[in-house]
């Protein structure tokens, strides 16, 4: 006779709906499935042990992603070889001219790139840019929440997002040129 499944606990009801988000962020932070699964499990267990400190009614997703990010930095980051930037937060005015799309200034070429290409380009970003791009543009978090989570001012989040997107767009545009989807050239 099968053992009936245990009733879902309050913790599980609050936390498990955010598992896909945690996994997606973990996958982009660690760069591989095995480490992502371990990171999510470690983070859920840490959250379980810290459950008493979670204030009911507050943002569970933000709380969980903060735990996950801290776990990544403390336990996983050194396992990942990642390009480092010398001047990650060097002050620069938001550049007005971006590379553009060459013969495709509206960026229609982005839609012709296969998912794997986009993911590879994202994974090749420096950690500091990639985490902000993922939290903002994949998971839809706002500046303030990302700033809280990463522990930097909102202005730094904006700047990292801007530079991360530019770098990503530049790489994807090169792919598109190589693939003959767009002709090279400055635009618009």
């Amino acid at each position: 006779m099968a053992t009936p499944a245990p009733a879902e606990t309050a913790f599980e009801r609050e936390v498990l709906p955010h598992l896909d988000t945690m996994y997606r962020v973990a996958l982009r932070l660690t760069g591989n499935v095995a480490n992502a699964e371990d990171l999510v499990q470690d983070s859920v267990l840490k959250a379980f042990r810290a459950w008493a400190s979670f204030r009911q009614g507050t943002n569970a997703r933000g709380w969980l992603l903060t735990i996950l990010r801290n776990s990544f930095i403390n336990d996983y980051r050194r396992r990942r070889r990642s390009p480092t930037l010398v001047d990650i937060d060097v002050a620069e005015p938001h550049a007005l001219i971006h590379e553009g799309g060459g013969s495709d200034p509206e960026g229609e070429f982005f839609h012709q790139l296969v998912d794997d290409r986009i993911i590879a380009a994202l994974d090749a970003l420096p950690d500091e840019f990639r985490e902000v791009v993922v939290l903002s543009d994949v998971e839809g978090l706002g500046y303030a929440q990302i700033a809280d989570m990463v522990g930097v001012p909102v202005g730094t989040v904006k700047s990292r997002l801007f530079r991360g997107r530019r770098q990503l767009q530049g790489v994807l545009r090169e792919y598109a040129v190589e693939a003959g989807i767009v002709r090279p050239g400055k635009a618009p």
Partner: protein
Amino acid sequence: MNRAPMDCAEALDLLQDYLKEELDDASRDRLVRHLAACGHCLQHEHFERNFLAALERATRDVRCPDEALARIREALRSAEPG
């Protein structure tokens, strides 16, 4: 409140905040008016929107594998709460 027409430099500088819906109402209205009148900046907006849509399409459709969920549930059963 600033209602002055916006130039391209300011428009492109605020485009990121606009697309993230983090712009105050007055700036958003001024930017929308600029985009309606400026094909150059509108191209930039389309470029960014196409980029964001492709990025979302490539990354959002990922779910935590069932086996991982099962392992997590199992680990929770044997874990002691803090």
